[in-house]
């Protein structure tokens, strides 16, 4: 991931972050990304977990900033939270200015 996952809470996840997650969290995030949104109960049904275990995995992802939960505890629904993507960040600003305003 290039960064400590705990540092990335505010930025959402980049696709490559998914690959660096522990297996159970990765499966869950990939599934959620395809599906769009799901409750802990739905995730539990999908992965054959008990709902408390599914909620705990979702909360771990939420703590990293990779998903966000909405609704009250009895009807909480989780959504993936992709972050922003930026490449070639290390180029100096002056070079970017020249490229954009030749």
């Amino acid at each position, binding site marked *: 991931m290039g960064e400590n996952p705990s540092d990335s809470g505010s930025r*959402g996840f980049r696709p490559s972050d998914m*690959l660096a997650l522990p297996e159970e969290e990765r499966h869950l995030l990939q599934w959620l990304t395809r599906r769009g949104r799901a409750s802990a109960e739905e995730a539990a049904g999908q992965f054959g977990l008990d709902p408390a275990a599914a909620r705990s995995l979702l909360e771990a992802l939420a703590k990293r900033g990779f998903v966000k939960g909405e609704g009250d505890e009895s009807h909480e629904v989780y959504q993936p939270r992709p972050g*922003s993507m930026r490449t070639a960040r290390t180029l100096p600003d002056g070079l970017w200015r020249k490229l954009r305003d030749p």
Partner: protein
Amino acid sequence: MGKLVVVHSFRGGTGKSNITANLAALLACRGNRVGIVDTDIQSPGIHALFSLAPDHFKFALNDYLWKRCRIEEAAYDVSDILRGHQPGASGSIYLIPASMRTGEITRILQEGYDVGLLNNGFQQFMETLELDYLLIDTHPGVNEETLLSAAISDVLVIILRPDRQDYQGTAIMVELARQLEVPKMLLLINKAVNQKDFAALKQRVESIYGVGVAGVIPLSEDVAVLGSTDVFCLLHPDHPMTLALQSAIMEIVGK
């Protein structure tokens, strides 16, 4: 909901955009509503095959990513190309090009964009235009756009040439696609020489990667002569390249 098909290759020059355009045309010839998104923001080009001139894009994918327009406003109906060659064709093709303005390419490289917006844009494009298939033309290699596209794809088509560098790179892509749990992965071998050896080549590649080869496309001077000025399979419906792509279509639609 339509099917999301991502066309990718580890290395450049494999014919990815050309194959994407041809697959889109073949799907549309079967009566489907087909969308294409050029996510190769660093080196866009698929618009050329549909004779869509960069001066005529009011909006491109870049504009959507900068929230200057809705995704469907960056889509252009390029179905005339079908009717031009096959008057009875009932399908449609909608293309979202990437910007060909130098400043806009460098701006997006510098500033990046919101991954969630790209993901939502694919879904919205499919829903708004009621697409049966959405084809994503990607930038070669391993990058965030490709990983995102693969992570949400229904079918991932990996193009490779019979070339050692392509073989090694394809192994990486196949491994990543497995980690991302892509539901269906297909290989397409392009620019193959020695037609007599195609069956053996297909078998060899399938055994190396454990992934089905959907078609072997011969190296063709006819494709080179066309030079991205048109969609090849519409001009040459019985050409070996078109037949190989037809067999890939059967795999994509699920027989």
